[in-house]
């Protein structure tokens, strides 16, 4: 709740600035929001594609164990930012998950009642 409010405040200020706040205001904003807010550790750490490290060349859609970690709780495909994959492997994983869904190996949505 508090977080939301703060964000709103910031937006409000941003808008103000655009309307002609002075230079100092802008600078303050830059410090508070934006880059400085990130913890320095995570900012500098570079993510490497897990599948590239393992040198995976072919992703089999039948192996759900391999695909499952790249889906969210709701059965959605996780984005590149979260999965940390490179563009190529993200693409391959995506098509594999979609194929697995067609063959009922993976669910389309988690709202579909789990079968026992």
């Amino acid at each position, binding site marked *: 709740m508090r977080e939301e409010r703060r964000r709103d405040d910031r937006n409000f200020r941003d808008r103000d600035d655009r309307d002609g706040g002075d230079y100092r205001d802008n600078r303050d904003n830059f410090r508070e929001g934006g880059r400085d807010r990130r913890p320095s550790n995570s900012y500098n750490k570079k993510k490497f594609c897990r599948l590239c490290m393992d040198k995976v060349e072919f992703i089999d859609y*039948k*192996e759900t*164990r391999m695909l499952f970690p790249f889906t969210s709780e709701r059965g959605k495909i996780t984005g590149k930012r979260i999965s940390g994959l490179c563009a190529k492997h993200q693409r391959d994983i995506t098509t594999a998950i979609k194929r697995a869904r067609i063959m*009922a190996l993976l*669910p389309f949505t988690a709202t579909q009642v789990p*079968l*026992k």
Partner: protein
Amino acid sequence: MNEYETLYILRPELSEADQDDLGNRFSEIIKKHKGGVLFNLPMGRKSFAYPIKKLKQGYYYCLDYAANGSVVKELERSMRLDEKVLRYLTVQRAPDVDFEKRLAEVKAKGEDKLKELSKEGSETKLDSNKNKNDDNTETMEE
């Protein structure tokens, strides 16, 4: 000749003989069109992630073959017409394959056998299948 892989799901109530019959029929279609079957791998009875035609489980088969594109058309046609097949999906594994070479490779790599991980999974499912099967029929009657 390209290498294709067709994964198809059969109805859960089929007997083993029925399943083999269908497998043979599909293989014959491929052979008739001058293609070669690399393997027809039963992946066991698996439960679906969501119901298909109100069914909860089905027999998965993985059919790999080297053939021309026209064979896929014919094979899929016969699968579509057969009501024992719940669903199928054909994927091209590799373009321009030599059948004999590929067959030797498959046997060397053991691609025509279930991988250990997936085998364990299917076995555990097979054990608990009997009870599930009863449930299945009950719900269907309702």
